């Protein structure tokens, strides 16, 4: 068996966001080439931002990604607030955190149920499951519906939020709406989680381990999704503004998405990194969920990303409930006079100085960094966005290089499936990562 030639060539991997190809070449039993080609057309968002009003960046950059547009909006807002020295209120940040929870629930449900599960049940898509396992599909639909209800009420819409802007909202959610969301979120936790855990605990997750550098935000008092410092499991913590000293990006011939490398390169971002680094900050129900799914900390198996996402769905439901209860206890207040929000197309913008800011959040797929330089006319001089998938691409290739030699004795179809499942486990967001990134600023 060891002398065989195998050529795996998966064109436009299905059930991932964006266009990528897997190429594996084995000659005489020896691994010659492993690549994850990114063939998405370049998108050039950083270049598009140059010369735009600083206030518009949130609406332009949300269009980087249809799945994680709340995360892009939050990262963009935080970068601008960092540059302008704006400190948003507790209420504003709490509402942003609830939106983050909703986006995690939506994105993880989409990935877990719609994109990953078909592999485990031998189906091409979730569509056959609609008749064979309707309860499971309906559960996924309910998670997504809940997430969209939360985003619709607080931000006007999930994909490309409308009212979520610098220093507040153009329209403030009411206490009645939040109370209604609270009831719905509690119902999801009670009704939909048990079935979810039962379903995912039965899936046979491929066995494979490779320890890497796990990178995510971390905070002393919470499971960091919205703020904190960046933690690398191998090299320690760094402040968001120092990211340039810690992340290097390179253009790779086969990828219109640049690859990002850390000091110990490459590294992983996303749900498994957060789970490994911040396990102790998860809610009690989330920890119980991990136990029921057989997920122990730390896990070095990238196929476990999907399970870590299920744990995070539970964590985010509980966190959204806790934050909403606290918000309602304090009462929702109109703060526009003390904290004037800045709409993208406000006819008059506040005067700004030449400034620079960095915004970092956890998107569903991992660490997301936006950085802008703003000139004295309030226009963006340069922008840089570091996308989770760009950070994971190099790590996926190293995983594939370790995985392939161990499974060469299996049929080609099985090798192909295991490779596709590996790429899908990372839940890559390819069209996000191809608008890419310039590393050096032109002064």
């Amino acid at each position, binding site marked *: 068996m060891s002398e065989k030639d195998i050529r795996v060539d998966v064109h436009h991997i299905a*059930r991932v966001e964006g266009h990528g190809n897997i190429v594996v070449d084995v000659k005489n039993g020896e691994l010659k080439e492993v690549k994850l080609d990114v063939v998405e057309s370049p998108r050039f968002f950083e270049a598009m931002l140059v010369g735009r009003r600083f206030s518009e960046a949130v609406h332009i950059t949300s269009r980087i990604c249809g799945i994680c547009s709340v995360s892009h909006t939050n990262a963009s807002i935080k970068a601008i607030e960092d540059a302008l020295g704006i400190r948003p209120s507790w209420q504003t940040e709490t509402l942003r955190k609830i939106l983050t929870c909703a986006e995690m629930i939506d994105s993880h449900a989409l990935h877990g149920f719609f994109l990953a599960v078909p592999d485990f049940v031998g189906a091409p898509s979730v569509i056959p499951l609609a008749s064979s396992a309707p309860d499971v599909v309906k559960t996924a639909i309910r998670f997504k519906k809940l997430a969209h209800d939360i985003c619709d009420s607080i931000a006007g819409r999930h*994909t490309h939020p409308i009212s979520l802007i610098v220093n507040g909202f153009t329209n403030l959610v009411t206490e009645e709406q939040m109370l209604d969301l609270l009831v719905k979120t509690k119902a999801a936790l009670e009704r939909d989680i048990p079935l979810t855990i039962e379903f995912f605990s039965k899936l046979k997750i491929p066995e494979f381990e490779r320890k890497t550098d796990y990178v995510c935000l971390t905070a002393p008092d919470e499971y960091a999704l919205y703020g904190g410092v960046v933690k690398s499991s191998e090299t320690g913590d760094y402040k968001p503004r120092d990211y340039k000293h810690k992340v290097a990006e390179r253009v790779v011939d086969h990828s219109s998405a640049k690859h990002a490398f850390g000091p110990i390169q490459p590294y992983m971002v996303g749900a498994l990194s957060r789970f490994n680094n911040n396990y102790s900050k998860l809610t009690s129900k989330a920890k119980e969920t991990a136990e029921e799914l057989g997920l122990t900390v730390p896990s070095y198996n990238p196929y476990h990303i999907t399970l870590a996402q299920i744990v995070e769905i539970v964590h985010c439901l509980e966190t959204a409930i806790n934050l909403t209860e606290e918000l309602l206890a304090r009462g929702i207040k109109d703060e526009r006079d003390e904290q004037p929000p800045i709409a993208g197309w406000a006819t008059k913008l506040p005067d700004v100085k030449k400034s620079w800011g960095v915004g970092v959040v956890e998107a569903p797929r991992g660490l997301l960094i936006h950085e802008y330089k703003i000139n004295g006319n309030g226009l963006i001089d340069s922008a840089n966005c570091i996308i989770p998938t760009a950070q994971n691409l190099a790590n996926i290739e190293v995983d594939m290089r370790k995985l392939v030699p161990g499974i060469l004795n299996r049929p080609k179809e099985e090798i192909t499936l295991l490779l596709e499942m590996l790429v899908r486990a990372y839940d890559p967001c390819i069209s996000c990562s191809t608008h890419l990134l310039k590393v050096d600023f032109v002064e």
Partner: protein
Amino acid sequence: MQKPKVAFFEFTCCEGCQLTVLSIGEKILDLFGSVDVVNFREASSYKGQDYEIAFIEGSIASSEDIRRVREIRSKAKICIALGACAHLGGVNVIRNFHNQANVRKSVYGDKAWLFDSILAQPIDAVIKVDYVIPECPIDKKEFVRVVSSLLLGKKPFVPDYPVCTECKMKTNVCLYHKKNPIACMGPVTRAGCGAACPSVGNACEGCRGLIPDPNLGALEEVFKEYGVSTEDIMRFYRMYNGLMGVHK
């Protein structure tokens, strides 16, 4: 009755419109029951080539995109532009107004030549488009309505009056009349979104494209009255409508 075969394709975009399709709630089960989805890479690894209706998301931004969209047109009886990128070129068009060599170099440095990239265009710059579902991203209800119309053999309805009409019907306070006025393209933008953005207090950015014969002169007078500079007017127009005049 045989179920129509439907396919979804995406070009340069965020795939938010297809994700909106996946987020229409329980109606998605009805959708999958009444059509035969043969190609939906975002959601399925089955790649059928025998489709009659093609929903096409994203703008054309590389020579490979041109080849691929022509191939889709040659196979499909009906091609539908899904969302602002396919319909208008979307926000991708913003970069058309920059020096392309600089844009490419700023992102990919001396390896810029490796990546195939052309000016961003709507799909009807390359192929004939039968229907459009506008907006960034598409509206869930409008998508369901268009699919229902197609299944009934009817021409989908898209309004040709402005967003202002829907905004007034909702009795919203005009954004220009707020304490901190916000510039809004509602007077010239095609309705159908239910004035989604002004209803939550933010500007209509024109993502559904312009109405027929828009009175841009009158809008520009309003902009000027509120102190919006000519440069800012150009920025607003170029958010979604940079190709107006070039593209019909």
